[in-house]
């Protein structure tokens, strides 16, 4: 009679066993594949560095998987193939990310000193080996914090409306508008503030105008991410709050939002990181300024992206060094803001 596989497994314990590809075998198989590929490049007219890398990679992987299929069987090959693909992708991402960071750091440290952080570009020519980004750092911090001040509370309120109260026509209209806003090119946001505020209301260029343009870009990101995070809060927590006689608005404020706070912070930081590097809308709103402008509410102001843009457009090496230093500072500012936000929400969470 035909015996089913599982029945066999119970009677014959050896069915439960399978081969194990040891680390030594794995390395040997991979090395074999790599050696074959190298041999092919040596003996045949094959050449080219990129081609060599690709072929050795594929040959090494094939050797590894062949050994796995010989020793361990089909299921394990699929498993190991998936693992190879994941590790490769992670490696490529890290490589891209790491090379941007490292290259920026290497080029950026040259002009990076205390002088750079404490001086503006007031009266500094493109060839001069002097000047700094103080004015730009002040501008970026003020503009981004003001933008967050506009976009985060209103974005949270919209998200709460959408998740807790929004049903019917109005909610789907709001949702559509937010979806459309995600797609607004940043220059259009700048153009809008330029036409409406800078020219239309004759307010002129200012950090405030820049913050408004940035807020337009932040708002949809904050709304969408906060909405998703609030939706993830288990309904049981809301019910527990209601059952204690806690009114709905307090349940939202004191139970739902704190539970979602880690995710909401991530969304806010994504939005902040996204707008901190914006350059185009700032050209039309903050305009840029070489001297220190501590007042974001009147007159043109610089910012780090504008500073980098301005310095990098110059042909002189002193200016280009300043551009790299500015870029490195920009990365550091985003990093610091992210860490700060994490620390703030960490206090909200126990564990």
């Amino acid at each position: 009679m035909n015996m089913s596989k599982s029945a066999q497994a119970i009677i014959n314990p050896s069915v439960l066993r399978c081969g194990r590809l040891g680390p030594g075998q794995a390395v040997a198989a991979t090395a074999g594949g790599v050696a074959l590929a190298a041999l092919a490049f040596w003996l045949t007219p094959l050449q080219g560095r990129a081609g060599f890398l690709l072929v050795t990679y594929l040959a090494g992987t094939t050797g590894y998987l062949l050994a796995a299929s010989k020793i361990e069987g089909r299921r394990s090959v699929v498993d190991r193939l998936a693992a190879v693909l994941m590790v490769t992708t992670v490696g490529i991402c890290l490589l891209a990310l790491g090379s941007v960071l490292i290259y920026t750091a290497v080029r950026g440290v040259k002009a990076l000193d205390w002088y750079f952080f404490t001086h503006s570009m007031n009266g500094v020519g493109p060839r001069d080996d002097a000047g700094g980004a103080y004015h730009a750092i002040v501008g970026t911090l003020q503009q981004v914090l003001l933008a967050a001040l506009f976009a985060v509370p209103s974005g949270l309120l919209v998200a709460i409306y959408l998740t807790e109260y929004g049903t019917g026509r109005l909610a789907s209209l709001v949702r559509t508008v937010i979806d459309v806003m995600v797609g607004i090119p940043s220059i259009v946001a700048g153009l809008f503030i330029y036409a409406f505020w800078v020219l239309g209301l004759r307010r002129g260029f200012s950090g405030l105008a820049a913050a408004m343009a940035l807020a337009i870009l932040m708002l949809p990101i904050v709304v969408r991410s906060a909405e998703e995070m609030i939706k993830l809060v288990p309904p049981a927590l809301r019910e527990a709050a209601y059952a204690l006689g806690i009114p709905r608005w307090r349940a939202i404020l004191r139970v739902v939002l704190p539970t979602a706070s880690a995710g909401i912070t991530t969304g806010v930081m994504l939005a902040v990181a996204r707008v901190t590097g914006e350059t185009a809308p700032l050209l039309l709103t903050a305009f840029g300024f070489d001297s220190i402008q501590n007042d974001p509410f009147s007159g043109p102001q610089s910012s780090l992206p504008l500073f980098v843009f301005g310095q990098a457009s110059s042909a002189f090496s002193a200016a280009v060094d300043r551009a790299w230093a500015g870029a490195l500072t920009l990365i550091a500012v985003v990093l610091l803001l992210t860490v700060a936000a994490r620390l703030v929400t960490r206090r909200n969470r126990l564990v």
Partner: protein
Amino acid sequence: MKRIEANHVSAWYGTFKAVEDVTLAIEPKQVTALIGPSGCGKSTFIRTLNRMHEVIPGARIDGEVLLDAEDIYASGIDPVSVRRTIGMVFQRPNPFPTMSIRDNVSAGLRLNGTRKKAELDPIVERALQGAGLWKEVRDRLDRPGASLSGGQQQRLCIARAIAVEPQVLLMDEPCSALDPVSTLRIEDLIAELKDQYTIVIVTHNMQQAARVSDSTAFFTLEVAGDPGRLVEVGPTSKIFTKPDDERTEAYITGRFG
């Protein structure tokens, strides 16, 4: 000590009628058990008793629920105040994950803004003692509520419910997610709490109903899709020995369906 009287209560989810025409009196200082097959509307009915049913979008009820002769569904009644008077414990323990043990217990009071910080500590202690959890947690009140075991979490939820000093305590299968030892602890607790509270407990465990309750109400539904109905209610000893209705007898003796 409050008495609850449900008169001709029917409950809907949208157009689906889940409970039909239930009339039931719940006596003070007693434990009333609601039993019946799954899906017969026990949870739905118990949630109509403290206006939690209407929290679900599209849900509504018909009929009246009297709390000491006052209809909690009358116009001008604030559902939030109703829920402060009639507390509830759910099937799955649901402590607030962002709050410590202490803050979980005082959540009802703090979030209603009714007490000052200094007054809270003794209330927290009393509620935890009432829920039989004080000895286990007194030196880790600042740890997260989620760090407790399932049974402890459920007792934390009971402490949280009695900290707001309700008159009535509704429990919807409070032990069904717990192990037998934790279940026994909660049953003991229910026996202690019934001196102070009117208690309604939903359970699908017949032994539990027999152990903890003074009177028992049996719900059933004829076919899936029909609304659940109350079959009979009476002293627990009678329902479990000589029920009037043969459907009750079939269910009690395990010859159901």
